[in-house]
């Protein structure tokens, strides 16, 4: 039994806003909150002068799998500047924009995060994703299975066999041990297999008479029908293209009243006809979000500096290569998806980058409901996740924003509305966007709060006038009730859970697709999926 005492508790799900409360932990769970004269603690954690929050949850980050690993392999120059020696309790590795697996786990934990969702898992290489997740210590994890350009899904939609789409998705989630439906540039990535793209959400894929609008609409419907704990996770068409906010709004509309999560919305909220007149359309995108409770989004905030961009959006990454002239990796995955990787440096002096930077913050600050707005950098696309404390500071302090705005090109100011926004997030709201709301969005009941019965994933931060310092390094981190980080130092390298879903509505789809599968894939159907033994601590989250 551990008693955390004298800390100021921020637990939005239970409506606790900075109150001093004792939290009692036993057997990996929170067993009591407040005074408990009958309980005896073996260890008392004195949290005086500290903030106590549930462990952080990152709903969108690229931390594991083929694409991430190609990014690592591509960039020795990125690793050399950030090396991490082994200690008695931890493994060695490298950090900066694409940390090695062990370091990924440690650094999230050191910042007080206890759960991270890998945002893009190609089914064919799902085993790879899970092998890497296995080697990311401490935190709980899950992965979104890529489906927006899958042959079977496109073919069934083309033929109007929506029930088959549903069975197939149910089967694919179970087979890949995935958490939800990820859609990346629907139909566009399929077209990329011939070097093409789609330019709007009503243009058909190169090989299938299916439009992105149809696909988004049908898959959002299916996610709701299957009762997936999380909605579809949508990376809209036309990412990074000036004027793309219209596509983003149309994509949200395509879901009707079905749940949809629009990811890294910053990259999809641009106005203008080209780079010369790019400007913020954050307001237009947020307005739609504000008025439609079925919609959630995350920021995809950029951070000035060098990073590695990587998405399943092959055509976008090629475009970014043409723009930057930097080295370019493309990795098309048969029948399913693609991936691209390009190193990129966001510069304060660049007009476009300055506008992008402002848009991410505008989205977060204009969103009326913090329960539907999430802080991400789309790690590592906007910047490494290790910059979250800096972003928290920008959200919480107008002065910090003004300091940064003063360094931007003057011409950027007329293209953004950030300088006029006065809102400052409170600690309570930060706890919402980084803990409570992510847990809700993922449909988890035992996470993101500090009520009795919750997983004892607890971050304790030392108070400091500089919030960036507060969130950079935890005083204590409890994972499953064990103190794993103390004073920023990882004491213990535990293994976290892998969360996945099994909607159980696959019917006989596996046998139905077998012949075609074995004809056009290059692996056998029986060898395709992820066997149970890949999940050291697998946990199936129920649907419905």
């Amino acid at each position, binding site marked *: 039994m551990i008693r955390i005492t004298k800390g100021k508790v921020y637990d939005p799900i239970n409506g606790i806003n900075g109150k001093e409360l004792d939290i009692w932990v036993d057997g990996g769970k929170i067993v009591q909150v407040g005074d408990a004269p009958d309980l005896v603690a073996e260890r008392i954690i004195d949290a005086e002068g500290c903030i106590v929050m549930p462990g952080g949850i990152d709903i969108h980050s690229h931390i594991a799998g083929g694409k991430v690993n190609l990014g690592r392999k*591509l*960039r*020795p*120059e*990125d690793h*050399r500047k950030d090396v991490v020696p082994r200690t008695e309790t931890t493994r060695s590795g490298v950090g900066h924009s694409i940390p090695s697996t062990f370091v990924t786990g440690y650094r999230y934990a050191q910042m007080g995060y206890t759960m991270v969702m890998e945002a893009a898992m190609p089914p064919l290489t799902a085993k790879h994703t899970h092998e890497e997740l296995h080697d990311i210590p401490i935190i709980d994890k899950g992965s979104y299975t890529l489906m927006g350009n899958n042959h079977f899904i496109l073919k069934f939609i083309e033929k109007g066999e929506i029930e088959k789409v549903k069975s197939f998705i149910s089967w694919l989630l179970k087979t890949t041990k995935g958490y939800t439906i990820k859609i990346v540039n629907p139909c566009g990535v399929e077209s990329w297999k011939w070097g093409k793209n789609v330019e709007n959400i009503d243009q058909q894929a190169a090989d299938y008479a299916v439009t992105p609008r149809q696909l988004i609409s049908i898959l959002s419907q299916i996610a709701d029908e299957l009762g997936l704990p999380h909605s579809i996770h949508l990376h809209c068409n036309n990412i990074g293209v000036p004027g793309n906010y219209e596509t983003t709004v149309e994509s949200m509309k395509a879901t009707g009243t079905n749940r949809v999560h629009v990811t890294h919305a910053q990259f999809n909220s641009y106005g203008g006809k080209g780079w010369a007149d790019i400007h913020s359309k954050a307001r237009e995108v947020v307005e739609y979000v504000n008025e439609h409770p079925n919609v959630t989004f995350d920021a995809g905030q950029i951070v000035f500096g060098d990073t590695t961009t990587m998405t399943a959006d092959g055509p976008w990454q090629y475009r970014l290569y043409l723009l930057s002239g*930097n080295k370019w990796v493309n990795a098309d995955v048969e029948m399913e998806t693609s991936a691209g990787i390009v190193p990129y440096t966001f510069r304060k002096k660049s007009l476009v980058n300055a506008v992008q930077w402002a848009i991410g913050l505008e989205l977060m600050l204009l969103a009326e409901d913090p329960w539907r707005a999430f802080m991400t950098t789309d790690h590592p696309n906007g910047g490494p996740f290790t910059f979250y404390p800096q972003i928290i500071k920008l959200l919480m302090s107008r002065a910090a924003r003004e300091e940064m705005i003063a360094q931007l090109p003057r011409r950027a100011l007329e293209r953004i509305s950030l300088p006029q926004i006065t809102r400052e997030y409170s600690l309570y709201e930060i706890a919402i966007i980084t803990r409570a709301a992510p847990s809700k969005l993922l449909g988890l009941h035992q996470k993101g709060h500090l009520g009795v019965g919750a997983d004892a994933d607890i971050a304790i931060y030392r108070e400091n006038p500089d919030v960036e310092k507060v969130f950079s390094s935890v005083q204590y981190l409890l994972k499953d009730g064990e103190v794993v980080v103390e004073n920023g130092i990882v004491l213990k390298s535990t293994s976290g859970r892998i969360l996945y879903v099994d909607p159980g509505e696959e019917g006989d789809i596996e046998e139905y697709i077998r012949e075609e599968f074995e004809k056009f894939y290059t692996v056998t159907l029986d060898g395709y999926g992820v066997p149970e033994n890949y999940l050291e601590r697998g946990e199936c989250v129920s649907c419905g």
Partner: protein
Amino acid sequence: MSGVGEMNEILLRPKVEFDVPVEAEVISPDLFAEKSHEEIGSLPVFLGNRKMCLKDLFEIEGQSSTNIVLEGDFSRVKKIGYGMSRGKIHIKGNVGMHTGATMKGGEIIVEGDAMDWLGAEMNGGLIWVKGSVGHFAGASYWGSKHGMNRGMILIEGNTGNEVGKKMRRGTIAIKGKTGDFLGVGMIGGTILAFSETGERPGAEMKRGSIVLFLENCTNPPPLLPTFTYNCTYSPTFLRVYLKTLRKLGFPVKEEYISGKYRRYNGDIVELGKGEILIYEP
């Protein structure tokens, strides 16, 4: 006589013959300055995987100087002068890999040979090697966007491959033979190679100048087909470079200064704004 007793000098000699590599980036004027003999002796070095003190491996004479003299065989000692910004290291013998890599200023003199990655990604300063050097002098490390970015490397002996790879600014001059891919992927700067060169000089260069003098070279390698002949002339900038080298004491024949050079443009598969100048006797 060695520098013992001379003013402002610190002398290091290996205590033993090293059978495994030593990493000693602490042998740097920046770190030796304003430190006592004792403090210098306690600086950390790695003999293979054993972390040790400088004094465990080297005899140290003198203290608190930015003027370092190394005597003996340092060919297995890596990273000497790594990242240094001032002062001088005089190596009276052979030296290992990464000598002067990423250095920003100061001077390194090597009496003997230097191994691979000499002055790789350096940003300033001077390196002068009397003997020969390995591969990748002044080059970029694997994955990096550019190699040496300022400064000067002078080599009197021969070199290995890919000298000046992706260099952006600065000068490299080589008296002896050079290996393959001299100045590969160059972005800027100047390489002067006085003797024979290996295959494919200037491959993939974007900008910058490679000057080949082809001294004592009976069978010069053909240039890549992606370089095109431009003109024969007497470049002014070259005169300045050659005179500067001479002033520093680097041997340059008189006839080169006023000589004529054939100019080739390339590499057309890249930006194509680079040039190879070939001395015409």
